[in-house]
């Protein structure tokens, strides 16, 4: 039973990037199909995080995008039609020794210069902002615009919006074959064969494989992010907290559960997905959390989960036309994908529709930079 269907746009990958692009294209009247290998949307990197929306965690170069994106997170009920649980509770970054204070001072200065209202604050102010903060920190910074949303609601919110806009959601369907060019694209997924005038690749950690199907050699690494959550507790934390080392993301939700993350790695791969936590990494993450807020030692850990995230060699997003294609685009490997998803997805949709984008796509997001002939010029991390 092969069903032949024709679409204006086929999107491969239903995380926050793909879902946001789908939303804006559908709103503009495009006939959209979205393929997602998991049973629902936003089940990998888009929900394997603590929901942090912190300018203090964003690279200086992305601050202008982040400022716009945070506005979109806050106004989600208007453009998405769904409350994503956004809460602006202010963010604290902690440095625990002299070296970290140097990092903190330099990096926050760069972010401030880019437009983020981040200040280095004194110890008294930090402890006034967060009553249960450890005494054992060296310095801290604060940003009143920082907050978080409920990462577990992301998939549900987009699913409802896309359903309302009649986007065809094909969940539990990977795309095995893709081919085409200016005349359009043909995609094979199981027994389904569809054609689309345009193609958007938003497959996260799977982008390397997807791009290879279009003869593009762009290496994309797979990271396996680990997150954990405690049982509900009485209120013990007010702010969103992170660490200068970038290895801690911590907050208490309105239900009272405490979410603990920081990009610590679990075990898994592109074929099996995220399959196991690495106990040493979980312990390290929890130790950081308890170091920052010692009261957390009383909490019981309830659950951990995993999600795959894309990373490319220079730690910059890939965003723009697929090299060698005029009607195919790619967006991913953003590193702060959850935070920037709403704005980057919107911008890419604008570019696809030939509209003036909210912000121009920087040259250094260009996917072509990662082609073999161009790689030597990259700053590799």
């Amino acid at each position, binding site marked *: 039973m092969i069903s032949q269907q024709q679409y204006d746009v086929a999107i491969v990958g239903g995380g926050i990037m793909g879902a946001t692009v789908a939303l804006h294209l559908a709103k503009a009247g495009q006939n959209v199909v979205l393929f997602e290998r998991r049973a629902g949307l936003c089940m990998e990197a888009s929900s394997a995080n603590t929901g942090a929306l912190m300018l203090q965690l964003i690279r200086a170069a992305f601050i202008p995008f982040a400022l716009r994106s945070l506005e979109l997170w806050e106004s989600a009920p208007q453009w998405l039609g769904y409350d994503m649980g956004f809460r602006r509770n202010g963010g604290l970054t902690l440095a625990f020794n002299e070296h970290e204070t140097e990092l903190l001072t330099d990096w926050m200065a760069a972010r401030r210069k880019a437009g983020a209202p981040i200040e280095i604050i004194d110890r008294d102010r930090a402890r006034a902002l967060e009553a249960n903060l450890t005494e054992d920190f060296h310095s801290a910074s604060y940003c009143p615009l920082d907050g978080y949303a409920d990462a577990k609601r992301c*998939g549900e919110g987009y699913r409802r919006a896309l*359903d309302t806009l009649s986007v065809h959601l094909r969940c539990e369907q990977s795309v095995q074959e893709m081919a085409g060019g200016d005349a359009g694209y043909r995609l094979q997924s199981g027994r389904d064969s569809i054609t689309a005038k345009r193609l958007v690749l938003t497959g996260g950690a799977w982008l390397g494989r997807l791009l290879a199907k279009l003869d593009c050699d762009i290496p994309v690494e797979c990271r396996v992010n680990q997150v954990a959550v405690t049982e509900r507790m009485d209120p013990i934390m007010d702010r969103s907290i992170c660490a200068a080392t970038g290895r801690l993301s911590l907050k208490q939700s309105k239900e009272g559960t405490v979410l603990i993350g920081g990009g610590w790695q679990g075990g898994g791969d592109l074929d099996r997905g995220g399959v196991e936590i690495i106990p040493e990494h979980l312990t390290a993450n929890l130790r950081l959390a308890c170091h920052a807020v010692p009261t957390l030692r009383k909490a019981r850990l309830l*659950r951990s989960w995993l999600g795959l995230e894309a990373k490319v060699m220079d730690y910059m997003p890939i965003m723009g036309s697929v090299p060698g294609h005029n009607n195919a685009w790619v967006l991913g490997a953003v590193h702060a994908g959850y935070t920037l998803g709403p704005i980057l997805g919107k911008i890419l949709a604008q570019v696809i529709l030939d509209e003036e984008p909210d912000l121009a796509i920087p040259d250094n997001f260009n996917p072509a930079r990662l082609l073999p002939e161009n790689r030597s010029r990259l700053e590799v991390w």
Partner: protein
Amino acid sequence: MAAATEAASLGLRTAIADMGEAPGGQVYRSPSPALKPHRQAVGNDPDWIEGERMRMALSESGAAIRLKTRVWSMARRAEGGFRLSMHHDQEGLSQVTTTALVLANGCHEKLVPVAGWTKPGVMGLAAATIALKAGSLLPGDRTVVAGGGPLLWAVAAGIVKGGGKVAALVDHSGFGDWLAALPVMATQSDLLIRGLAWHGTLLRAGVPIFRRHRLSKVLGGERVEGVEIEGLDSKGFPTGAHRTLTGDALAMGQGLVPSLSPARLLGAECRFSPEDDLWIPVSDGHTRTNQSGLYVAGDLGGVRGARAAALEGRLAALTVAFDQGKLSKSQFELMAEPLRRAHHRAAKFGAAMARLMRPPPPLWGAIDQDTIVCRCEGLRRREIDQAGSAGAGDMNQLKSWTRCGMGPCQGRLCGEAASALLSKVRGVGREALGSWTAREPLMPLPLADLVGEFDYAEIPQPPPAPA
């Protein structure tokens, strides 16, 4: 216990881990060492006698016995075998690697939510059993015992023998259902005699017995003061004939559910058994799962009772030994065959008991809209029905939308009810709804236990991402 004893006797380097203070699980639960005159309390209890025999054999077997130990994380190792992360009450964290893993972690209680069941004074039949066996404690002064299966009668008899009062015994099965099971029950005559003895104990104590009745409401203000029960027809449908009973405690339970999280975590294939109305691991008749090196034994593989469990435990040990080359094919077949036959006979008995434990399907539909289903998150049936109507098409979506199953019990108390109710509202079988993804930790663990004492400088933080 049987698996570890047998494995050690076959020359395999064996360890057994259990959360309890002593081996024995539920059926062979040992009285708490804190109780001094426990010998008097258990007296000639056959379960205690058998349990002691098995504990003795285990302690002499040479297997390493790790008690008060929680296995909270497990994974397959790239080089083969498994890594288990454990926490011991006093000694803290440790890790163990093993070539073969036998999961024998049994079941938890199946409960049909009823209006008022969250009042103080309500406990499960299994909890009541633990209180009686380990603590010589009675649930209350006048306890109503309700549900189905042999455990119902064991608890009621246990209360009477312990000097307590049973306000009433309420069984969702009819006399005819028990009669129909008589031929199978007769194959394990000692168990049949024990069951008849329980019955006799209750009759002599003048305990009112209500067959083919369900709990329809738990009554009382601050705590249990009584219950309302309702008659059921021969198909299990409520008849509308109610009566009120007084009592200050309620022990209820409608069956047992294999605790599949550890098996699922390791990727063991599970299937839905419509006969049992349960998800069970797929095994090959010799306890092997579809994961190499992973075996399941006992009630975890399907509720078939303690006798079958012990036989299956021994079978698992033999299979492990054969798979590791310690037994030849002919030795294995010679030793395994009688075990398989004995297990088959014992399992038939267990299956008949499981059928009696199982709540008649109409009981799920009879749950009031206002009744709390997910106790941890305070979700009522109404909210589950609404989510299902609005499009939540499987268990994981239900969880994501409503938080059902996200609390400390991680779905142990509400999972069966949530699945049965979602199945009704979606008009699909329970199998189509799938099940909740198994994750770590396998049980809630205090952060203090996981982090221990540490220096900040010890924390192995990778270099930060670029600015």
